């Protein structure tokens, strides 16, 4: 107990010399009470024996069968052992990354539902100490299962004569990746409400990041997403050991095994993976600690969310910078002739990819930082109590539209830079269809501001309904209409433009020159649709703004009237009885 508390309790004896665990102590798992809890409960022999046996049987089967088959095919023992490494890594990944992440999120959700998490919150162990305890304690069974695969790894390493440096760097990246997924599981566990759902979603997300994301997103020009998995390090470190040489020129997925371009620099996949995953671990850690301190707090503060968006923008642009400045040829997403037009098409499309991906990120961040009406009212009451008229702009309970405008400005700034570079490199001229950069940037800014305002005014649940009805239904209606008329005209474009999703794409389409052919009629329809859509979006934004201002006025009036009433003493107030 600190000296401050001792002095605050002059009349209370302190019969014990106990001392709350220090942060340094709780960072050591074996001295961390939470870790010890899970070490006891999850490693109880009768519960864990099934998983131990399963791990041993499967791993031994895979390694022994693979090795025997290769030896029978006259492979030398060294090569046979090395070839098994990737199989072993997959098993280890399934254990620690997939099963472990599910265990982390499900375990934390279960503790929250049972309310036993509250007990741990009320101990003097620091939030970071608790985070470490849950992070390494919840998946302790999976770490034990991983340990059971180590004899097989030792066999592969010794017979395969794998360099120690390679082993160390691969498993270093592997464990950073594991910690990233587990921290993500903790952050999900602090927010989600059903442990079965949390378990499944966490495991699916890990599979998505490792299996779908690298091959899917790399085709869209956002290669840095691939470094959320352990594949780049495997490609860089393991493939040479097993005798496979990736050819970056072919499949874009294989480009992740070569150095990572970032503006005018180049990083090794190992370094870039560690940097990127380290930043995400920090973010998930911040989310978990904030929710740990208060379950009603937003997972991220507004300044952190803004910094995260800015970092993402810098990363996204930096990753494609060599391509848009013609320093390097971009990887082509689909098998196509590597012509100048194909390259221009890919690089020109990067602007749209950037806009849509940053929009999705902004929606996620807005969902986190936009206060509910309940919190907004709480913010006013708190501010009035402290002699202010409203909550500070960057506080959780504030609904400052200026802050949302800053988010939009950061995102649009990135798009403007990207468009300028693509244009300066002459890609639009090659395509012969210049993107209307200013129009696209303006629409993007409005769409972002509208999205924030939507969340702010209608709340998250009703916003989801709007997304379904206003964002998707016009596109589906246009498809049905186009299928009916077997054409695409002004009516189709007008219907489609009601959706902000379609509007963003349409706003970049340039108007055709007078006297063009059939294809230009479609462009003309798109350009007209963009005008209609922009007008509709402006009206929607204005309507939301007016509705929000009405909410603000009523909340202000309500809180101020209550505040005035509270200054008048009431006869049935809380005055203590006379002695």
């Amino acid at each position: 107990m600190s000296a401050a508390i001792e002095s605050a309790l002059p009349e209370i004896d302190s019969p014990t010399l106990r001392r709350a665990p220090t942060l340094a102590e709780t960072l050591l798992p074996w001295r961390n009470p939470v870790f010890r809890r899970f070490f006891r409960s999850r490693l109880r022999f009768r519960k864990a024996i099934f998983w131990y046996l399963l791990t041993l049987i499967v791993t031994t089967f895979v390694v022994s069968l693979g090795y025997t088959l290769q030896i029978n095919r006259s492979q030398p023992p060294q090569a046979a052992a090395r070839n098994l490494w990737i199989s072993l890594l997959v098993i280890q990944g399934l254990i620690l990354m997939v099963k472990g992440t599910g265990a982390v999120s499900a375990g934390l959700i279960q503790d929250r539902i049972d309310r036993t998490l509250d007990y741990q919150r009320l101990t003097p162990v620091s939030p970071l100490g608790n985070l470490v305890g849950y992070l390494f304690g919840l998946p302790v069974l999976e770490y034990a299962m991983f340990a059971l695969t180590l004899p097989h790894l030792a066999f592969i390493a010794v017979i395969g004569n794998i360099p120690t440096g390679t082993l160390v760097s691969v498993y270093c990246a592997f464990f950073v990746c594991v910690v990233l997924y587990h921290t993500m599981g903790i952050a999900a566990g602090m927010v989600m409400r059903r442990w079965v759902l949390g378990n499944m979603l966490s495991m699916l997300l890990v599979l998505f990041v490792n299996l779908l994301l690298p091959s899917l997103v790399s085709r869209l020009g956002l290669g840095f997403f691939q470094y959320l998995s352990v594949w780049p390090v495997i490609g860089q470190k393991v493939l040479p050991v097993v005798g496979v040489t990736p050819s970056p020129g072919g499949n874009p997925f294989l480009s992740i095994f070569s150095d990572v371009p970032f503006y005018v620099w180049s990083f090794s996949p190992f370094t870039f993976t560690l940097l990127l995953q380290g930043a995400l671990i920090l973010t998930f850690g911040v989310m978990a600690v904030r929710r740990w301190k208060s379950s009603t707090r937003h997972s991220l503060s507004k300044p952190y969310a803004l910094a995260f968006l800015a970092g993402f923008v810098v990363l996204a642009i930096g990753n494609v910078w060599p391509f848009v400045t013609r320093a390097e040829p971009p990887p082509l997403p689909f098998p196509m002739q590597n012509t100048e037009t194909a390259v221009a098409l890919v690089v020109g499309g990067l602007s749209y990819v950037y806009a849509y991906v940053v929009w999705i990120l902004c929606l996620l961040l807005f969902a986190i930082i936009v206060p509910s009406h309940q919190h907004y009212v709480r913010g006013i009451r708190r501010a009035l109590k402290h002699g202010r008229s409203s909550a500070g702009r960057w506080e959780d309970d504030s609904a400052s539209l200026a802050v949302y405008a800053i988010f939009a400005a950061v995102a649009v700034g990135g798009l403007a830079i990207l468009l300028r570079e693509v244009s300066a490199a002459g890609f639009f001229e090659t395509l012969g269809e210049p993107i209307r950069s200013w129009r696209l940037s303006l629409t993007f800014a409005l769409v972002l501001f509208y999205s924030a305002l939507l969340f702010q005014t209608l709340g998250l649940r009703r916003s989801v309904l709007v997304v379904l009805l206003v964002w998707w239904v016009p596109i589906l209606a246009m498809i049905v209409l186009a299928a009916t008329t077997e054409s695409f005209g002004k009516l189709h474009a007008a219907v489609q433009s009601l959706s902000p999703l379609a509007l963003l794409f349409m706003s970049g389409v340039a108007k055709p020159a007078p006297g063009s052919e059939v294809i230009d009629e479609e462009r003309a329809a798109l350009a007209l649709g963009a005008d209609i859509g922009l007008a509709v979006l402006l009206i929607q934004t204005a309507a939301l703004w007016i509705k929000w201002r009405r909410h603000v006025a009523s909340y202000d009036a309500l809180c101020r009237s209550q505040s005035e009433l509270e200054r008048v003493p009431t006869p049935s107030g809380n005055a203590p009885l006379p002695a």
Partner: protein
Amino acid sequence: MNIAPATQEPPAPRFDPARSQAAPILTIRNLRVDYGHVTAVDDLSLTLMPGEIFGLVGPNGAGKTSTIRVLATLLEPTYGEVTVAGLDLFEAPDAAHDIIGYMPDLAPVIPDLKVWEFLDLYAHSHGFRGRERRERVDECLERVRLADKRNVYGRALSRGMMQRVVLAKTLLHRPKLLLLDEPASGMDPIARRDLRLILEELAADGAAILVSSHILSELSDMCTSVGIMHRGRLLRHGRIDDVVSAIEAESARIRIEITHDVEAAVGWLGGHPNVADVRVDGASVVLEFRGNRYDRAELLRALVAEGFAVSAFTPERSSIESLLVSLIGEEHHDVGGD
């Protein structure tokens, strides 16, 4: 602090908060908690001294649990100031955790830990080490009479046993402020008696205890003071006798026996400004009287002076529950009247 089983010792002398010169352990000023448009706690102010056992009573939804969860740092209030042993609760929550012991309603235990492992986890978290930790766990188990259940899993415990295990957990770090939310729910009569004795012992050692219940009589045996909460507001608080007297003073039922001329007495009483609802009940007249004991004495004097032969004049003492209901009813009426 004495750690021997509670029932084996004579009751500890009551700590008298009123005579204590110590600083308050808990001070709440203008606490407010809102859930959207619903105000759960409305401008609550309260002080708890060392040795005080304060009972917070009120119907469901009165704001008791919200108040306790704010004090336990589990709920962020709209505003308000709370100091615990001089520490600002919201500025230094981690330090305050070492002073506060919190037991929630329907307190859960971790199902896949044995009872001793459950207690060991929190003893470790509170900084007990080695042999001291084992001893402290055993002491607390003895105290709640569950030493024979130390190797039973949490999932195998009955509701009452869970309450006692969590009470043991709450006592582990010798908190100076105990927050107990409906602690007796699910406990059998013996466990309730043990709980009362444990709380009295802790209070005798100088701890302040805030205990909530929706049953006032459950608290009246163990509390030194009580507060009545309704719709987020603390309607009354003070020593339990004072609160009861004050409620009674506002409206008490009086039974008067008059040997003859009862009808005339009823007519006379009906015209008295402090009297309402006069009716004849057998040989007695029963009426509702508003006023304190001096007003009652004045009524008796006036009756006799008018020439009525009063053979008995008995203010009826209501049960605590009926007083609570009447107080809350008045509050309902006031709100409705507004």
